[in-house]
């Protein structure tokens, strides 16, 4: 006997193309011009923040920074689709998601300046940046299980890179999500590179979305530079997830900048490739669309940028005024203070180690 036991396909969705043209058949009903304008402003703000962070790193005012340039649409489009109560489990590059989730900018800067205090937000359900690639996905599954257990109706959304899809925890998490049917959406941000390793070296699979099938989940691709398409796909996935059908979304985008401020992309990729993707970057098409609808012009752009600058500078000033308390690093390890740890803390304070910063200057 011979029979087919599985057949699958991956949809690819684009609503707003590179030229600013909308595919009306796919446009969600709730997407109005004013929402697109909102999206544009958020993407622009993310880009302004990103540029600021890069320059601050170069001045030694923040530590290593992973830029988001080119990935504004996947972040803003998805974040605008979240519903109140949804929980986000991000990776380290989702700055615009943090911003739209209401993380105060000064806290974001405090984190980048190297202090855990930036992530200390009472009551926040979103998780902070997780650095070990892919390891946060099982957390997302557990959080989703908890929401289902509590019958809250909330959905968990997690982000991972193309490189991250090669990690064991990625596969395990998808597998668990399928078995437990948890309210979860996994967004693969396929920005074509994992530091110096190109997408094709991560997997011979034709799409990353199809990895969902092995775990019994739905998989879909979307133009990750199309903020409206992103919004649509995430919104649909959230509805499915609320019915305990997890989805994997692969958004196709491009990391236009360096991996982090410690990286030099000219070592592994060509200018030509970058130029090609620059033409498809997410802001141009939205500006084209808004201009064609007479909703945007240079003077509005100028005013907006000035506003951003003011807000960002204020937040930064606040962050730079933050005074860390060195001895506090001992105080957030256990729910109790072990005698042996207290002794180490007391010894450090008594010896005045805090006062000696010479080796760091």
């Amino acid at each position, binding site marked *: 006997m011979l029979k087919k036991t599985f057949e699958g396909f991956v949809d690819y969705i684009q609503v707003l193309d590179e030229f600013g043209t909308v595919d009306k058949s796919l446009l969600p009903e709730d997407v109005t011009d004013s929402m697109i304008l909102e999206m544009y402003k958020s993407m622009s703000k993310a880009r302004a923040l990103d540029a600021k962070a890069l320059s601050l790193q170069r001045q030694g005012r923040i530590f290593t920074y992973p830029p988001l340039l080119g990935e504004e649409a996947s972040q803003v489009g998805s974040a605008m689709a979240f519903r109140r109560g949804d929980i986000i489990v991000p990776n380290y590059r989702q700055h615009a998601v943090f911003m739209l989730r209401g993380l105060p900018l000064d806290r974001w800067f405090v984190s980048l300046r190297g202090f855990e205090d930036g992530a200390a937000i009472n009551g926040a359900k979103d998780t902070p940046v997780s650095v070990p690639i892919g*390891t946060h996905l099982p957390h997302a599954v557990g959080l989703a299980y908890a929401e289902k*257990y509590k019958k809250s109706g909330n959905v968990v959304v997690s982000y991972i890179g193309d490189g991250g899809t090669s990690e064991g925890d990625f596969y395990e998490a998808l597998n668990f999500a399928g078995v437990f049917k948890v309210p979860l959406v996994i967004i693969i941000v396929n920005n074509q590179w994992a530091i110096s390793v190109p997408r094709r070296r991560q997997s011979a699979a034709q799409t990353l979305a199809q990895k969902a099938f092995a775990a019994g989940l739905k998989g879909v691709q979307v133009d990750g530079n199309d903020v409206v398409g992103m919004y649509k796909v995430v919104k649909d996935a959230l509805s499915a997830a609320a019915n305990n059908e997890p989805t994997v979304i692969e958004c196709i985008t491009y990391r236009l900048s360096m991996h982090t401020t410690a990286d030099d992309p000219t070592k592994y990729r060509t200018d030509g490739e970058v130029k090609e993707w620059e033409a498809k970057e997410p802001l141009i098409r939205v500006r084209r669309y808004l201009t064609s609808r007479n909703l945007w012009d240079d003077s509005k752009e100028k005013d907006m940028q000035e506003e951003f600058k003011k807000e960002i500078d204020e937040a930064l000033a606040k962050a730079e005024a933050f005074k860390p308390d060195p001895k506090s690093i001992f105080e957030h390890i256990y729910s*109790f203070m072990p005698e042996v740890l207290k002794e180490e803390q007391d010894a450090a304070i008594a010896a005045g180690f805090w006062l000696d910063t010479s080796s760091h200057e």
Partner: protein
Amino acid sequence: MQMNMVAAINNALSQCMEESDRVVLLGEDIGKDGGVFRVTDGLQAKFGENRVIDTPLAESSILGMSIGMALGGLRPVPEIQFAGFMFLGFSQLINHAARYRSRTRSTKPVPMVVRTPVSGGVRTLEHHSDSPEAYYSHIGGLVVVEPSNPYDAKGLLIKSLHMEDPILFLEPTKIYRLFKQDVPDEMYEVPIGKASKVSDGAQLSVITYGTMVPLVKSVVQKKGVSADILDLRTINPLDESAILETARKTGRVLIVHEAELSFGVGAEVAARIAEKAMYDLSAPIMRVASPSLPYPFPGYEQYYVPNELKISQAIDKLLSA
């Protein structure tokens, strides 16, 4: 009621699950099967499949999912079927469970109790007999507990489930059904971070924990020596005061554990005594442990794990020093 350690742990889990519906168990074969050691026997029938969860076979996600559950307000008790397989989820413990509290300055603690059987002496397959407590005790932020008897097992587990920390709860397989003890029916707590004085003596101090506690007790009894026996119960954080107190009292210290000698818990205990009670000692600190090599196949086990003779000779040497 008279209970062995398996029954005491089962009883503690059941009572904690009755006490709070936030307590959920998850792991391989823990539901219908009741766990390969039957520690969770009957709990799924009592509390349902959503609270006693048979998971797919993947340790990293059992631990990772538990972290997420804890962040989401549940109190997960993941079981890793054998400690030798927990390394597949090591990163979840060291990178996340232990660090979430500091990463978020206590705004997101991860209360979870990871249960796993440890140590040998019961002639199992390779990887089913390891004593990995030292690896985990090196991780700040993770609490490591190892009871040596049914009474402590129940009280320590209940205490662990009442805490806001990630706790590794090591269960010596050899002791699971070794003996019964009177265990109170009601809920009670045994403190974390406090060693227990198993016997009081004057000639020497034996500092030990886990599988070695019953063995040390019987050797000391047989030899008729007068020994302080300290059962650490919590390995991290160490009960340094109790360690120093007994060391100062007898001046002769023997540390006994089943895990490999080199870089083991004994080294940490010895270092602390050397730093703070050196001049109270009448003899060099001694250690008895398994040799510094991987746990052998069951045929060689008896030549590997510390036995009566090895401990007895060490005591003689210490007393004559």
